[in-house]
Every structure is written in structure tokens, then in C-alpha cells.
């Protein structure tokens, strides 16, 4: 199957599968904090990206932009959690 799919298509399929799996698993575990979901989405993005790379140079440039945005979200969540612990 992988030979007939482009890497970018594998990336989308894998990421969509991981997002839905994460929501199912975390909701089954009664997780009610949205930041946990978002942090998981961010980590999964980088994992799937590494697993399916390299992509085309043009796509790689755009992936970096999305990666930086997700990293900012992830860093924000971590900072918030650290501040909560420090209080």
C-alpha cells in the first residue's frame, strides 16, 4: 500500500488516525483538560512528521511553519502547567 501512496498522503492518514485514537483513548480515560489533548496533538505531529519524512522541499518549509505554531501552543501549555505547580 505504501508504494502507491505519496509520503504526504501517508502523513495525513497517520495523523488523522492518531488524532481520532487520542480523542477516543483520552475520553475513555475521563480526561477533561483540553490542554492535554492539544499537547498530545502537537507531539503526535512531530512523531508522524519524523516517521514519514523527508517530504518535498516546498512541503518541508510549510511543515516547519506549522511545527513552530504547534510548538508555541505546546510551550504555552507547559508554561501554564509549571506556573500552576509553582503556585
Amino acid at each position, binding site marked *: 500500500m505504501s508504494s502507491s501512496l505519496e509520503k504526504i*498522503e501517508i502523513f495525513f492518514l497517520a*495523523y488523522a488516525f492518531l*488524532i481520532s485514537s487520542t480523542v477516543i483513548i483520552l*475520553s475513555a480515560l475521563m480526561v477533561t483538560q483540553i490542554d492535554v489533548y492539544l499537547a498530545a496533538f502537537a507531539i503526535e505531529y512531530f512523531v508522524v512528521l519524523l516517521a514519514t519524512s523527508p517530504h518535498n522541499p*516546498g512541503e518541508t518549509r510549510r511543515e516547519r511553519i*506549522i511545527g513552530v505554531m504547534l510548538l508555541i501552543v505546546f510551550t504555552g501549555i507547559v508554561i501554564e502547567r509549571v506556573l500552576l505547580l509553582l503556585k
Partner: protein
Amino acid sequence: MTITFRVRTDLSERSCWICGSQNRAKDHFCSNCGVQLTHLSQSKTSRAFIGPKDFSTVGIFILVLGTLLSVFGYLIGIVPVMALGLGALILGVMLVFLPEPMSSKAGTLAILCSLPSFLDLEAFLQDLDIAPRGIYIPVAGFGAVPKVLIPMTDSAPSISPPPKLARSNRVFITLGRNTNQRGILLRPPGAEIISALENLLQLDLSTIKLDELSGRMGFAFEMLGISKRTVGVQMEETAVRVQMSLVSLVDLEERLRSEAPRLVEQVGSPLTSAIAGAVSKVTGKYVRLSDSSINGSNLIVTLELLADVSK
């Protein structure tokens, strides 16, 4: 994400891609507008990957769905629904934003396939230390492509090469007995683009007027995935200025300007030489490249019109 579909090769009718009129399957040209009909693949089964446009359509749908789902989840206070919505939103943004346009891929392939030949031509011009710019020799006839003659010496008087040279396969040419009138006869880098342009339009460019070129060239270049439809052609007394917004080949144009400047200046890049050749064919005049510049995706080519073939 692949769709497999079967193409029926026994279709009794097929529609024209220009005017939409129905034609018999075995016809090669449209009975209404005369344009060449596209041929079906010999293969009975074709595979089509989801293209960038489909990615965008699916992406926008998932993006909207994700936004609605996350707002709905927020309003009813169910976090997993909101998370699913946010996940879909992120995926939608990626589907719209990430996939590289096909035109960009085609441009990359064009560079990989053709760059070594252009660099060889650049080295050839440098080794021979030829300074003058090439002269495009006008030709007439469907499928005939103008050739470009580069005079070998600056001191050579203004050369008007005979039109029959366009059919010559020689490279080193001496015009008459004057040894100053030597030149190198090349097939222009954009020769195949001119052929493709004529094939697509089913038209001999030498039969149209210069004011028609803008519309015809814009249509053909858009169909070939080279530029947007609007192509500006400004005619001055002895010069023609062509302006267009490229959708592909930008990388090739930029790389050639940095790696093969002599070729770009004296003969032209594939696209500029195609434009020069087309203008030469339409006007029936010898044409010399004056200037070509690319700013982002905007390509501006200025051509100098020399003598008519008859003169």
C-alpha cells in the same frame, strides 16, 4: 488516499475541452472549433492520486467541520467533542496549507531534466567568448520553429540571416564570403514550448497578427501550466514588451539567471526564448532579446524587432 477508476475506451462520444461540443470517439479534432482533442490513455485502468485541489477541498470541509464541532463542544461543555473539533481543525489547516502544488513539482522536474544541458550551453558560449546577442530567424508553417543565430564577432555588421537557415542542422555558419559574418546556429531553448503552443492552439503562429498574440499565448500558457491567462504584449515602434505572471518554471528562470547568465542574456531562458521565437514567427521579423527580468513570479521580456525577412 488513492482513487482507482476505469476509463471506458469504447465511448462513442467525447466532448471537446474547448467548446464542449460532442465528437465521435475516433475523431482527433473537434468538428465544431477544430481544436485537437485529448487522447485517452491506452491503458484501460488509470490511477489518480488526490491532487492538491482535492486536498484543499477536503481540507476546507474538515476545517469548517472542526470549527463547528469545537464551538459546539465548547458550548455544551463536552471536552472530547471540543478536542475532536480542534484536531479536525488542525488537520484541515494542514490539508489546505501543506501539499505542494503540482506546478511546483513540475517546475522542479523541469530543472532537474534540463539544467545540465543549459549549463553546457553556457560553458560553450563562455569558451568561445561570444558577446553579441542571438538573432531569432522567423519561419512560417505549422510546427516550424525559429532558430537563433549568434554572431561570433562584435565587429560583424548587422546580420540578416536567410530564412532557409531555420531548416539547417549545421551549428557553425558562415554567411557569404565575409569571414566576419560567422555565427552559431542553435535551436532555441524554448523551441519545444513554441511547438507545444502551436499544437495546443492548432494554429500556425505566422498566420496571426501581433495584437492577437496576447490572448492566444495567454490561453496556451495557462493550459500548459506556465503562466496565468493574462499576458500583456505591448508593441512599440521597434520593440515588443511581453509581461506575464508565472505559475511554474520560476525556479528554473531564477537558477538560470544565476548559473547561466550568458545564455539567458544572449539566447534566453526556455520561456524567454519561446516568447522571442513566437514574436519572431508572428511578426515575420528578425528578433533580438533586449532584456528579460523576473520579479517574484512576474516575467518581463523586452524584444527588439529587426528587419523583415523580405528585406
